[in-house]
């Protein structure tokens, strides 16, 4: 009964290595390819498991062009035993649904099914840097029909045939016990990938990589590739920066640098020169017949996630786009919100007052805490019963694994982490029809540099919405709606994953959303475990300023700071008056969470740090020198021009 450890990897271009060509454009041809960072953490998790299961067979799988062999060989040089590549031109243009389908078909072909006699575990990265959807692990798990845990920081065997996974949830983490076989997706945390060994590289040089085409694994073309995928990318436009060039502080010591910052700040920094945009010509709409592909599906379904007995903020935010879409679709379009849990009925009225027309209650003692298996099954049943045209989830760690698992059940694609949701139409020139109405899901992509519009042609059209992007809708007291109860069939098999512990700190730290000044410590401030960052925040607070401190992902990954304080794509999206980034390199995922701040001050010792491209004011220096100086100024009354509030 030897364990098989399967690592799923994807090869991606390394964005930080892309060099500027001489024409000032990114020279993608010179961009090196790497194994997606999250996948590398998945690979390492596999190698760590091997320590407890010395007999385990380590295999690595990927799907992509032949050039992906390079990454598979790297995996071998790190310690994997065998490599498999699914490579077929017919797979080109596959969306996440099709990718999940193809990979799981290959795994099943290799003998890894839910009824396998031999135990196995599939380890994947949380998400890829060139797609950022986090869908595939969920879709693979659903396709094979096995349990999953995504957004997992660490995974350890419990010694009796299970693994214990530490999963990130909103505001904290959860310890889950999963049996084999299962799928685990790893966040880039904890144990970074090891370096290849020379002996491994020598082995990798000659090792035969098994390459499959779709015929080899018995996969048809109906549901894969550009034509079989349920979603398409309809449009990609550049995101234009709204921030003027940075003003850097000058000075030969910390006192002078801080003086310079204060003086620059007072002057207000640079102003963005607005360039007049040429009016784009209206593209003529062809005279094709309109096609309503919804086949009777009507209404918008949303999920109200319950944490600590309350509706989570991102789920309330979701009602803003939901109402807006309902308005665009027509007056009779209903917004239906599903609440699953134990004694959740008291929450229903809040949802109605925030904009739900109907609250669908699913109550059961076993459902007190979110679990992807029963929740996805319940949703599939609700969708079958209500036939909504759109289903929306907040892009929390739960929403982002739940939505793709549901999408697999309904054969719908899912669009991840959207920042814009509108109703539009799609002109299909080939079929000569206009699909109308259709959900246009907009999401930033390619390192937040482009905005892609994704369309799905199967109902329900499923999207997850990035937390912090939409405002919580205004509460209308006494708003009327329907409260109904839904009784799903619950399957015991859906409760094989056990929650050992749920830890949520500081109530999800809602005050990060309302603070005027947020001081954020990055990897560069680990030396004192963010001591100075906290002191600066405290100093501002004692001056009566509504200040709070936060951190970037690496600090949370190190376990120094709770997840609730993480700013960024996988953390909170905030927009304070002043954001002070200290020792934050400026990874694009972090930028996504703070770029809407009114003024951004960046402090880092590395003048090359990416953060300086996004800041209004900058200081190059050691934080251990600069921050104490700033603290002194604050203690002497400096408040960055923010008015003190009483009763803080």
């Amino acid at each position, binding site marked *: 009964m030897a364990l098989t450890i399967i690592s799923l990897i994807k090869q991606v271009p390394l964005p930080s*290595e892309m060099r500027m060509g001489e024409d000032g454009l990114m020279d993608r041809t010179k961009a090196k390819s790497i194994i997606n960072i999250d996948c590398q953490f998945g690979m390492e998790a596999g190698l760590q498991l091997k320590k407890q299961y010395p007999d385990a067979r380590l295999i690595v799988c990927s799907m992509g062009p032949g050039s992906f062999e390079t990454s598979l060989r790297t995996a071998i040089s790190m310690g994997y035993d065998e490599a498999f590549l699914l490579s077929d031109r017919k797979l080109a243009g596959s969306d996440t649904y099709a990718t999940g389908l193809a990979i799981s078909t290959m795994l099943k072909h290799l003998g890894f099914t839910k009824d396998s006699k031999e135990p196995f575990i599939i380890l994947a990265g949380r998400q890829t840097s060139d797609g950022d959807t986090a869908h595939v692990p969920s879709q693979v798990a659903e396709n094979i029909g096995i349990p999953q845990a995504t957004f997992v920081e660490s995974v350890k065997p419990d010694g009796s045939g299970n693994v214990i996974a530490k999963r990130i949830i909103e505001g904290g983490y959860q310890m889950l016990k999963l049996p084999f076989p299962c799928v685990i997706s790893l966040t880039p945390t904890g144990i970074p990938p*090891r370096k290849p060994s020379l002996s491994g590289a*020598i082995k990798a*040089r000659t090792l035969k990589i098994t390459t499959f085409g779709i015929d080899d694994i018995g996969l048809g073309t109906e549901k894969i590739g550009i034509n079989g995928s349920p979603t398409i990318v309809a449009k990609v436009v550049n995101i234009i920066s709204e921030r003027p060039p940075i003003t850097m502080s000058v000075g030969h010591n910390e*006192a002078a640098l801080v003086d310079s910052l204060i003086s620059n700040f007072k002057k207000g920094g640079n102003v963005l020169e607005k360039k007049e945009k040429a009016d784009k010509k209206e593209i003529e709409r062809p005279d094709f017949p309109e096609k309503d592909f919804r086949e009777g599906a009507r209404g918008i379904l949303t999920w109200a996630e319950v944490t600590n007995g309350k509706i989570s903020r991102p789920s309330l935010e979701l009602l803003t786009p939901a109402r807006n879409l309902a308005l665009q679709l027509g007056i009779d379009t209903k917004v239906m919100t599903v609440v699953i849990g134990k004694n959740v009925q008291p929450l229903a009225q809040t949802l109605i007052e925030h904009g739900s027309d109907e609250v669908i209650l699913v109550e059961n003692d076993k459902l007190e805490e979110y679990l992807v298996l029963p929740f996805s099954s319940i949703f599939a049943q609700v969708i079958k019963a209500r036939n909504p045209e759109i289903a929306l989830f907040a892009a929390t760690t739960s929403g982002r694994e739940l939505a793709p698992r549901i999408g697999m059940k309904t054969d719908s694609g899912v669009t991840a982490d959207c920042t814009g949701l509108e109703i539009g139409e799609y002109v299909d020139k080939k079929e000569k029809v206009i699909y109308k109405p259709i959900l246009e899901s907009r999401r930033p992509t390619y390192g937040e540099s482009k905005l892609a519009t994704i369309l799905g042609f199967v109902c329900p059209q499923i999207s997850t919405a990035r937390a912090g992007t939409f405002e919580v809708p205004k509460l209308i007291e006494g708003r009327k709606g329907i409260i109904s109860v839904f009784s799903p069939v619950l399957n015991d098999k859906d409760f094989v994953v056990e929650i050992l512990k749920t830890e949520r700190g500081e109530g999800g730290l809602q005050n990060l959303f309302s603070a005027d000044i947020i001081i954020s410590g990055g990897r560069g401030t680990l030396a004192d475990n963010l001591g100075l960052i906290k002191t600066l925040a405290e100093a501002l607070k004692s001056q009566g300023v509504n200040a709070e401190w936060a951190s970037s992902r690496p600090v949370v990954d190190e376990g120094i700071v709770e997840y609730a304080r993480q700013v960024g794509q996988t953390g909170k999206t905030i927009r304070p008056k002043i954001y002070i980034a200290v020792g934050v390199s400026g990874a694009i995922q972090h930028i996504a969470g703070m770029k809407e701040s009114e003024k951004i001050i960046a402090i880092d010792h590395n003048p090359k740090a990416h953060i300086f491209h996004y800041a209004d004011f900058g200081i190059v220096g050691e934080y251990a020198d600069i921050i104490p100086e700033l603290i002194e100024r604050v203690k002497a009354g400096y408040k960055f021009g923010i008015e003190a509030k009483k009763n803080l």
Partner: protein
Amino acid sequence: MSYIDTVSTDVLIIGGGPSGLAASIHLADILKQRGQSKKILLIEKGRSIGSHILSGAIIKPSVFKELLPEVDLSEIPFNAKVTKDSTILLSEKSSIALPFHLPYMSNSGNYTASLGQICRYLAQKAEEKGVEIYTGFAVDEILYKDGKVIGAKTKDTGLDHHGNQLENFQAGTSIEAKLTIFAEGTRGSLTKMLIKKFNLNKDRNEQVFSLGCKELWSVPEGNIEAGRIYHTMGYPLDNDEFGGGFIYGLNDNKVAVGLVVGLDYQDPSFDVHDAFQIWKTSSFVSKILKGGKLVEYGAKTLPEGGHYAIPKLFVDNALIVGDSAGLVAMPALKGIHLAIRSGMLAAQTTADALLNNDTSEKSLQQYEKLINNSAIYKEMYAVRNFRQGLAKGLIIGGLHFGTQLITGGAGFFGRLRSQADYKTTLKVSELKKRPFKERFKGKLEFDKVLTFDKSTDVYHSGVYHDEQQVVHLQINDKENFAAVNIEQYGAPEQFCCSSEVYELHVNKAGQKELRIHAENCMHCKTCDIKSPGKGITWVVPNGGNGPDFLNM
């Protein structure tokens, strides 16, 4: 996890530069001719072949005909053929072209090139011939058995800053080899250990070095023609500073510019990178770069002690080749053809040793004989006192070089001794001349158009280092470093470093501390060479770390 991986090979070559690659190619060729099959393993610490390769470069092509007799020269990715070659006596505002070539400086028939490109080509040839090349692996330990070299070990990875094993610890691989060829390039960190262990520089001069900083530019059409090359003397160097600049016109409106300065200078605040920037502002150079853009930056040191500084190049089961052996011909600073030739001679020696199944020191002595009978010897012996002569200052040195020409290299004194570069640095209080910053006051504000600060230049080198590892620049005497190197010498590391690794931080209270930003390191090893009192030791960081030169 004390388990150690071991692999074995017939021949291990450490370093994928011209000498190591030439050794591998020639060895594979000879073995094939003899119908022998042997495993040749070549390990390179750079991310890929060429990542750590930097040179001017002007290359004498003839040696390639010998290395690759089956290949047409046109197949080798040289850049433009040298069309015209001038030596310029430079001052800030003017330039005088010397009406003649300095002896040994003629470049007719030579080619400009990116040595990195050449190495990539050679690596491809080597692999075709069956050589196994592994890049991105650092070798940090020589393996011995009974006092004899039996191979080397790759660096353990997955260590924290203090050297403690982390969970992702990966033990290095021991490579057992019948014969190991050290081809690490300039100031090889293992070669340094080998020389010390076997006292290979006994009765030899101390090796001395120059540091060259180079930038690759893209310039508007017409600024310089491809193949047009200049060497400059003079500005901004004083007579007691040995060195000069180079400007090589390349194809596609590229130009390679650089300044090479002997590390025997006395001023502890002298900064080769900054001198290079100032050199670019001279009217002669700035005209060529006008309207252009910086493409790449890099730096490397060159051993230039010449004939008398070459250590003994063989011990039981090991040979030293190329820059690691100090094989650079002065005054033209040409080492590539010598590196290739030494690699070939090492290959010949190795092939014979393998055939006779005798890799003992006695058997490998053949290598020295081959070198002494080769063009290397002739070239280096003729100019054996050149650099030592120049150590006395350009004018006297020039005279001395003149007499060497007449006396066939002996000069007036037979053999001049040289002293190690770290010994020539003066304390701040001992320096008689104006320190660097005063000499060039007003010229050290870099405009980021023509001139660049070190950080900006470093950005153009593709440099990267893993965060989780022991800092690879080690202060040897932590107790006295501040009192001596910082207080007495003014922390010369911050100036001699080509790439902003060392920062002298002075806090408000006036306390001084030398901060090490190892992530910027260009692997030029200047600090290891120049830091007073051998203050710094450069050890090899994780494999794949360091610069990532594309066309240097």
